[in-house]
């Protein structure tokens, strides 16, 4: 499977060494592309974060503390969600996937390196297109990240500027980026695995990227068609979604969520994968129930396609019992994962380095995000809490408490592999606790606000002192989260040169990316260990230690139950 055939002799004129800038601009190396993904997505995270802080600042007073103009506020929350979902969470996992997946399966590169570069470069193009809305007279998109018609059809007050058109085009570009990336991942994993790397020996992170990629491949065409229809409605006199012209407004919601619900799994599954990598390493045990994990991941992916209408319980246009039941059913594979994660820690020897800390944060916070989802899955309860701040709390416990905690875990876990140096543990722990406290301050009060009846997406709210207080607590938490990114940025910048040096396998980990040097060479591996289980690096380490003991003579305690 690996290409070992003799290569043609060196070309007569070797290319001139390029500047680092030109190098990154033209590279097709999955590692460099992965790193660019990480830089770009984290930049989008910071942009989305600043927008979120402006949103929170506005809500410190019932009548709106900052912007008297509701349109400006409406644009802020729209662009916040757009930046976070489309330009941060989805691409940052594509970034880690890009860097890590070929390493985890013992491949040289992605299957289509040039398409891989195209996938990346479409992202900044999409980002610039969407944010170019700020340069138009009407401002950027303003109807929420869902952009529901009929307000976006261009025939009614609101969302009539070119900002919404730019938004549609930008998201189409990101969609193409995501689709190309997904196909690339699938081909890479199916065709480029090292000898011995059977499907059921693949690391869980890779498994989750596979399922994520399948979701993207199947769902993105539907979103793309919805966006193109909306564009036609807006600009070429189409009537797909405007009932006044014979269209159907709910059709868009069905199409949009047919992608965007699976998209939630596209955002969270890679974090599941990361947790499934980190917990075994820092518990010094194999993953409990590896095959159950694979089945549960595939199950979540499959069920993910039959639950989209739970975003539409109050439209009166969907079959409630079916979608309610399918939604609740997702709790089953998710529950299996939780139990297996906990069982992985049981009887282990747990240490609490930063990657582990973020993963424990993930477990406890995503747990809340799963449980409060149980409320919204029941249509009668959803009647009460739909489109209130409860839902805002729910998505942030899933996507921040889940995905973002996972993203930070991934940074701390793989930074030594990518750079050859550790991030500072001390700063990492400070950052973790700031984020953890800020996160709960920011988002827990939103449950109470939602139950009290505060709708989402409002620039001002009823002058109720309790609402105002809860909103202020939330804003304090949000700013704490904002500040907590500073130690992280400092940590990343300083550790790049001054961090403690990391060996090839600094965490005593399991999967193949730890079998090569940190950072890996351009060709990824000088040699591969034999792959006879889902933990090739663990097996090789055990072998090495046994060999060493044989040399020094008997006496050392034999490790029990080697896999």
């Amino acid at each position, binding site marked *: 499977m690996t290409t070992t055939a003799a290569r043609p002799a060196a070309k007569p004129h070797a290319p001139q060494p390029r500047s680092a800038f030109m190098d990154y601009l033209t590279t097709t190396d999955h590692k460099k592309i992965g790193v660019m993904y990480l830089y770009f997505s984290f930049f989008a995270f910071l942009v989305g974060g600043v927008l979120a802080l402006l949103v929170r600042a506005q809500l410190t007073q019932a009548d709106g503390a900052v912007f008297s103009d*509701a*349109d400006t506020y409406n644009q802020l929350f729209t662009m916040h969600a757009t930046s976070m979902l489309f330009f941060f969470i989805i691409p940052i996992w594509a970034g880690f996937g890009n860097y890590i997946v070929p390493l985890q399966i013992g491949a040289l590169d992605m299957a289509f390196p040039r398409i891989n570069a195209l996938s990346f470069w479409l992202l900044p193009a999409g980002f610039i297109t969407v944010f170019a809305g700020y340069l138009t007279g009407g401002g950027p998109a303003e109807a*929420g990240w869902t952009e529901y018609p*009929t*307000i976006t059809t261009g025939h*009614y*007050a*609101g*969302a009539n500027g070119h900002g919404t058109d730019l938004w549609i085009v930008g998201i189409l570009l990101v969609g193409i980026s995501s689709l190309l990336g997904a196909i690339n991942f699938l081909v890479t994993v199916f065709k480029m695995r090292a000898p011995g790397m059977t499907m059921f020996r693949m690391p869980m992170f890779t498994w989750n990227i596979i399922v994520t990629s399948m979701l993207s491949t199947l769902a993105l065409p539907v979103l793309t068609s919805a966006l193109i229809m909306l564009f036609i409605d807006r600009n070429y006199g189409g009537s797909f979604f405007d*009932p006044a012209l014979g269209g*159907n407004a709910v059709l868009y919601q069905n199409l949009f969520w047919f992608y965007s619900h699976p998209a939630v799994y596209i955002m969270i599954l890679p974090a599941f994968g990361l947790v499934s990598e980190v917990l075994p390493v820092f518990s*010094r045990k*194999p993953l*409990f129930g590896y095959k159950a994990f694979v089945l549960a991941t595939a199950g979540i992916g499959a069920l993910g396609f039959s639950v989209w209408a739970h975003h539409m319980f*109050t*439209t*009166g*246009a969907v079959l*409630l*019992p079916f979608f*309610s039941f399918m939604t*609740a059913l997702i*709790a089953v594979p998710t*529950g*299996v994962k*939780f*139990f297996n994660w*906990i*069982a992985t820690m*049981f*009887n282990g*020897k*747990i*240490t*609490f*380095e930063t990657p582990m*800390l973020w993963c*424990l944060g993930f477990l406890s916070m995503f*747990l809340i995000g799963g*449980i409060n989802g*149980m*409320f919204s899955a029941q*249509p*009668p309860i959803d*009647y*009460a809490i739909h*489109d*209130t701040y409860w839902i805002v709390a729910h998505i942030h416990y899933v996507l921040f408490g889940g995905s973002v905690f996972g993203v930070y875990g991934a940074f701390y876990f793989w930074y030594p592999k990518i750079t050859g140096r550790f991030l500072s*543990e001390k700063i990492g*722990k400070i950052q973790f*606790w700031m984020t953890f406290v800020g996160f*709960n301050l920011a988002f827990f009060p939103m449950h109470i606000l939602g*139950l*009290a*009846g505060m*709708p989402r*997406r*409002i620039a001002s*709210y009823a002058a109720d002192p309790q609402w105002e207080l809860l909103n202020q607590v939330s804003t304090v938490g949000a700013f704490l989260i904002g500040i907590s990114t500073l130690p992280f940025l400092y940590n990343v910048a300083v550790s790049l040169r001054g961090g403690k040096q990391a060996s090839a396998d600094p965490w005593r980990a399991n999967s193949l990316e730890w079998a090569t040097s940190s950072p890996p060479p351009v060709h990824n591996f000088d040699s591969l260990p034999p792959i006879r289980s889902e933990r090739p690096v663990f097996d090789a380490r055990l072998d090495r230690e046994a060999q060493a003991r044989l040399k020094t003579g008997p006496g050392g305690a034999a490790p029990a*139950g080697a896999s």
Partner: protein
Amino acid sequence: MRPAGRRLPLTLRAGLGAAAALLLSGCARTGLVEPVTPQADRIESLYVIVYYLAAVIFLGVLGAILYACVKFRKKPGDDVLPPQTHGNTAAEVIWTALPLLIVLILFAMSYSTLRVVDDAKPVKDLAAVINVRGIQWGWEFDYGNDKVVAGGASDDEAPTLVVPVGQDIRLVLTSDNVIHAFYVPQFLFKRDIVPGRQNQFDFRVDIPGTYGGQCAEFCGTEHAKMTFQVKAVSREKFDQFIEGLSGDGCQGDESEPSAELALESPANQIRFIDVASKEQEKCLKAPADTPVKLTYSNGGGQPHNVAVVTGTASNPTETHIGLPDAAVIDSGSTTYDVPALPAGQYTFFCQVHPIMAGTYLVQ
């Protein structure tokens, strides 16, 4: 492996313990607003069950995580590999079946609640069927027979939907513009108002009082101000209220009919005002069988026009002036030629914002 490993479980426990305490403290009060309809009572019962179930699951799972962190943390110097357990089929079957069981039980409870909440009564058992129209940005509550209450974001007071207490009411929700949602927190209920669809729901308010509500589906600039109130009163007071609705904006208007009328709307507002008094204009009077010049000036910021119709703004039966002749202007001033009309009561309104409506009385 790394020395920092020992102290952390304690801080971890403190942090997560705080979260648990927060949830426990919530047990005293589940946080929901007080329900005022029997439908809301059912939803609250379901909510309370799910709430305690959620608390048990949360504390159980979090407890297991914390227990593992404390009990199985690595002791310093202990470098022996723990037992390498790869799984346990029996355990995994059990913890697949357990959530499945919970899901099935929950589904049964939720489905039976849903049937009660969404139950539609026979029309003969209903005390009133009220048409609710969502407008950018306001509400029209139409009790039938031209008895309409309307109001919106630019009014000082939110429009009020009056209903008789203790009697079954049906709301029919329609919109000819964008999607809105009718949401009253104390009904524990909302339903979208979708253009092209006719959604409806039945309810009964058991406790007299005034309850706030607002649009819950983002509908544009003034979405946040699209509020209303539901006032539940005795049947007698409700009947009096309906009686008092004239459907005539000219009651008490002393002005003389004129063949040259003027109307304006302030910048960025969704209402017509009188040119002289700057008060909201609800009545225009014109002489019978005479063509009328209607001068309209728009302060800018919102597109408006003026239409004159027979019938109501939401249900015109004959259009005398209107689109495309009575063009929408974004700002500035224009003159509309209203044809000669026989004496009678008509309606004038803006076709972009049907909530901007008044009586056009021809005498």
